[in-house]
């Protein structure tokens, strides 16, 4: 454990950032000193839904909020800008544990909407109550209850495997035992996630024992292609447009080392992803506030996204996305829900293949 007095004031404590404006200003300062004047300030905290100006960096397609009312043709959502009404396209589809009619959604559910056109009033896709747990199984209680460690920043989550999804999940995750990895999508309930869909196939190795990355000859290729996944907002704003990057500079991102010693038996299985090496994909060290241009190879949408948090858990997974062809390498970024939907991803699919240009 580091003593607080030993932590420099420029330390990126991304889990408890009190000065996001500092991170947002970094791209401007970088552009100034490197003479790349085309780059401007990037929002690292919140974005406005459909605002004009800074359109490149704000949500154009995506709206997040709590459902207030829903009818066959209109959905009323409580967003950061207050109550908003959206027309439902005739072809609009919704997901709430599975494909449902939009009219079947429940008031009170937290929802992510995708508009048909940028900033438009018509909605084509809705996800309600969707959640995801990605990490290491540290305790199993009976056949359907798991305690999962999501890393030092996110903590631990309870996963209950729904009886109707048990077979589907066990086909992709045959080892639901402490020490093995899990990545499941489902419905958020009070205090737990009801797992319904496997988000990937379980890696055959124990958590932290992923194969070593190949040595790099010359510089890392730019752009780099690979798998992109999403994560729940946690303490981040729900409409944050950004990504968790797997290779934050360990010298300034305050990786506080391993866990505190504890008598809890599950701690034996918990893995600190920062201590397990670089993972299967070698990526250049970046920092919070760095800008990346990300292209969804499936939908062909491209956005400029800032790094907003640490995605070291992605290093534990050496898997490939097969959403539209097989990705050439493993996880290169872990997007916020809003960014994932904004780029055309389907939350229930869990991933898409992407090309990432470092430095915007």
């Amino acid at each position, binding site marked *: 454990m580091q003593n607080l007095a030993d932590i420099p004031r*420029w330390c990126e404590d991304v889990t408890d950032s009190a000065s996001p404006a500092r991170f947002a200003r970094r791209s401007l300062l970088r552009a100034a000193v490197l003479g790349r004047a085309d780059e401007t300030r990037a929002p690292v905290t919140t974005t406005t839904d459909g605002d004009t100006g800074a359109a490149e960096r704000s949500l154009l397609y995506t709206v997040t909020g709590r459902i207030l009312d829903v009818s066959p043709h209109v959905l009323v959502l409580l967003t950061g800008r207050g109550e908003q009404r959206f027309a439902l396209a005739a072809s609009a589809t919704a997901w709430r544990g599975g494909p449902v009619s939009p009219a079947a959604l429940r008031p009170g559910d937290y929802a992510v909407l995708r508009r048909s056109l940028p900033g438009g009033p018509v909605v084509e896709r809705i996800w309600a109550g969707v959640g995801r747990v990605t990490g290491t199984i540290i305790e199993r209680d009976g056949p359907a209850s798991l305690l999962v460690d999501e890393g030092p920043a996110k903590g631990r989550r309870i996963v209950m495997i729904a009886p109707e999804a048990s077979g589907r999940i066990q086909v992709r995750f045959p080892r639901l035992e402490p020490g093995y990895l899990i990545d499941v999508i489902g419905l958020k309930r009070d205090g737990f996630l009801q797992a319904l869909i496997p988000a990937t196939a379980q890696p055959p190795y124990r958590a932290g024992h992923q194969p070593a990355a190949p040595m790099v000859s010359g*510089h890392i290729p730019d752009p780099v292609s690979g798998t992109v996944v999403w994560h729940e907002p946690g303490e981040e704003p729900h409409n944050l447009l950004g990504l968790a990057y797997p290779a934050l500079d360990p010298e*300034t991102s305050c990786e506080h080392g391993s866990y505190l010693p504890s008598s809890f038996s599950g701690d034996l299985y918990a893995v600190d992803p920062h201590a397990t090496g670089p993972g299967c994909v070698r990526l250049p*060290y970046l920092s919070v506030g760095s800008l990346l241009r990300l292209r969804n190879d499936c939908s062909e949408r491209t956005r400029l996204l800032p790094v907003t948090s640490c995605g070291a858990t992605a290093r534990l997974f050496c898997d490939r996305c097969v959403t539209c062809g097989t990705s050439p390498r493993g996880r290169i970024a872990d997007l916020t829900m809003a960014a994932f939907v904004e780029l055309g991803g389907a939350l229930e699919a869990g991933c898409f293949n992407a090309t990432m240009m*470092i430095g915007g």
Partner: protein
Amino acid sequence: MLTALREVQIPVLAVMLLGGCAAKAWRALHARSAAAGMDPTGLVPLHLRRPAVVMLFLAEALLGLGLIGTAGRLGDAAPHLAATIVRTATALFFLIAVGALNELRQRRPDAGCGCFGELSDTPIGLRTIARSGVLCASALVTIGLPPLRMPSSSTEAEMCLAVLAVELALVGFLSPELGDILVRLGYTEPCELQRIPVGRTLSVLRASSPWRRYASQVSTAEPADVWREGCWRFVVYPGVVSGRRVDIVFAVYLQARRPAVRVAVLDAATDEILGLAGARPSAVL
């Protein structure tokens, strides 16, 4: 010939044991966790793995030092007894290693033995098991050997060297780590993947001409912000230029020889660029 063969085993065994011990310690220190060396202990229950790693480390260190300490005439009181105990324990250690590696190979065919830390990530093969077998036999032939002495003639010395060379060649052939070592000796990670302490970057910065030019305008000793993007590390200091509050931004290219350092001065309130300086290399991000 036979005596030379037996005498050579002591230094070979000691070097192998202490080398393995040092490599495991290096891995644990590098990863800041003893858990990093747990591959060879994959056979024991999880809660016993950390103690098993420590015991393995201690056993190698004690046996390696014991072999050296009991090789000569040191401690004449009961030299044969101490030497015999250490050499028998060494033989037993490698005999257990043969069995454990064989078991681990069957249970976890993807796991490396971890014998030499991060160099031993290659899945366990017959060569690794055979190496432990050879070292076990080496330890057995040293039991009962009288204290080591310097060769009495050049012929005897040449014989010892020849036996040593053959033995090292055999161990090298049975060590999959050797290939990794040769590859790593000729490999340098690109700058964007190298972990470089902030202190080193600040030292480079303070020895540069852009720093000397702007040092008098910097108003705090500690930087206000430090971050990294690929091969560049950026350092921001607050300052005052002609009565205006400014941010002085330095960019340091992370390479060992003649790193480029650039600087820009921005108005702290308006972000207007007031000045630029420094080399502009065609550098990777």
